[in-house]
């Protein structure tokens, strides 16, 4: 049953890292009600920052924090573009995403210049660093492959805990209020502009952190690895809500549901990959899966209506 074990561990490994991405996107998408596409650029940027920092000798954990801050700055930019320059949020996110790509490549160029393979100022698309120390190294020495999973669980746990605390503070509650009802928030004296900016900063910071973990997992910084991350994040959020959320549970459970959704999504993708010999069809499968996930609320409703009909029929029959 080697195959089943591999499907499980691979899905868990990647699922945890993409779940962190999903949680970052969740803060923007569900809490602030903003679809921020900047994540596609910030994810690989986090990777580029991390690889450079580690190449400079910075300890991996500090590199993650620096990547976190860099994502925060990007989120700030998106926020300012949207609130102060009145650019629609969709475009603001895209602008940030477009900015991140050359930025990541410049950082890669600097990393490359450290082994004299490029000069500072060169744009380098991708870097592979197979022998760099990573945040995973510690637990890997004890648990092997599971060390990666343990490390990711710890990181996600810390982030979920921090978010749960933060959104219960005064500042956090006002950010949540802004996302739910801007008019009412302003009527209650909340500066909604500053809340949007802070919220987007936090969202992108977490996305950059997940990109940092990803680059340490795959030992590479490649600016194209951001493509498709938004789809994975949204699929995780929606699938998680469909599976786990009945009514409106508390914030921590909602964040956990993102992980459940991500893990399930990865499982299905991995399974599909086994059945399809040519991954060329996998993208099609991903798209269809995404549509199915989006339709789950519809199916649920239809199922409930069908149940009601059946009940009514039984009552009629017995009458």
């Amino acid at each position, binding site marked *: 049953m080697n195959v089943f074990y591999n499907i499980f561990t691979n899905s868990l490994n990647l699922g945890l890292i993409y779940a962190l991405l999903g949680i970052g996107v969740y803060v923007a998408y569900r809490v602030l009600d903003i679809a921020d596409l900047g994540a596609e650029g910030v994810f690989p940027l986090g990777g580029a920052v991390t690889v450079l920092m580690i190449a400079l000798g910075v300890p991996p954990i500090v590199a993650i924090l620096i990547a976190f801050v860099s994502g925060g700055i990007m989120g700030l930019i998106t926020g300012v573009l949207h609130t102060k320059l009145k650019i629609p949020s969709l475009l603001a996110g895209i602008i940030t995403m477009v900015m991140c790509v050359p930025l990541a490549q410049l950082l890669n160029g600097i990393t490359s210049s450290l082994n004299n393979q490029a000069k500072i100022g060169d744009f380098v698309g991708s870097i592979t660093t197979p022998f760099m120390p990573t945040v995973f190294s510690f637990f890997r020495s004890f648990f092997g492959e599971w060390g990666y999973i343990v490390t990711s669980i710890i990181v996600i746990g810390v982030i979920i805990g921090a978010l749960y605390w933060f959104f219960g503070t*005064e500042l956090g509650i006002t950010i949540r209020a802004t996302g739910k009802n801007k008019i009412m928030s*302003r009527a*209650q004296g909340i500066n909604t502009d500053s809340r949007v900016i802070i919220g987007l900063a936090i969202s992108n910071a977490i996305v950059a952190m997940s990109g940092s973990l990803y680059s340490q997992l795959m030992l590479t910084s490649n600016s194209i690895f951001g493509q498709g991350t938004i789809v994975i994040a949204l699929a995780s959020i929606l699938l998680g809500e469909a599976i786990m959320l009945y009514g409106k549970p508390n914030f921590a459970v909602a964040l956990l549901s993102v992980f459940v959704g991500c893990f399930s999504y990865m499982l299905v993708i991995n399974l599909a990959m086994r059945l399809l010999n040519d991954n060329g069809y996998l993208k099609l499968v991903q798209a269809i899966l995404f549509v199915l996930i989006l339709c789950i609320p519809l199916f649920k409703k239809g199922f409930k209506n069908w149940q009601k009909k059946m009940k009514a029929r039984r009552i009629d029959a017995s009458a």
Partner: protein
Amino acid sequence: MQVLDIINLDKTFILDGQTANNKHAIDHLNLHIDEGDFITIIGSNGSGKSTLLNLIAGSIEPDEGQILIDNENIVAIKNHRRSRFIGRVFQDPMIGTIGDMLVEENMFLAHRRGKSTTLRWGLKRNQKAYFEDLLKPLGLGLENRLGERMKNLSGGQRQSVTLTMATMNNPRLLLLDEHTAALDPETAKIVMRITNEVVKKAKLTTIMVTHNMRDAIRYGNRLIMMADGKVIFDCRDEEKANLTVEELIKKFSEKTGDVLPDTVILNK
């Protein structure tokens, strides 16, 4: 003591670029409101009543004129800052509160209005008792429902909570924008009663826009009728108390040469 001075206020809405289609919503309006006044404003649709409230609250900016509160021109102050001294209840119960959040969370937001935001944990335990004390006098049993989501409450209950939230920090001015219009007649009566009690008890300076001429006559100490962005009729105290609906309708036709639309007349 004059709480609110509106001097030469003017606002035109540009609809589609053709000057002929511009809407001159507020036409060089002047208004003075004393401390403790409870003013009802009536007028047909498009007379500028809601625009006036929006200008005072700061959701729109005037083209000309000044709005003075306690002799300070507030036109330059952003709307979220004005909420420190202005309380608002909107017509739509959904806008005034956040349905997905708990009743106590909503009240918490109103409670910290005007204070600086910290990273301290929101919703402290002693606040709950305070909120209960605020909701008890309404007589709707809402003090027992602080832990429920706001959307579980009916429209009238939500408006009552919004009213409490708007008056919590003793605002200089309370703005009520047809706040019972979306409620059924029974509930509207209850909310109006509560409004009257709250305003009287705290002696709040209040402006209430309403479509209901009976309410306009019955409540408050001063009545203003608007048409085409201007004040066309302003009466107070005894003269107001002796008004009848028929007289009001007549007055409107006299002043404007128009007839009040059926929707307003039927809303007796």
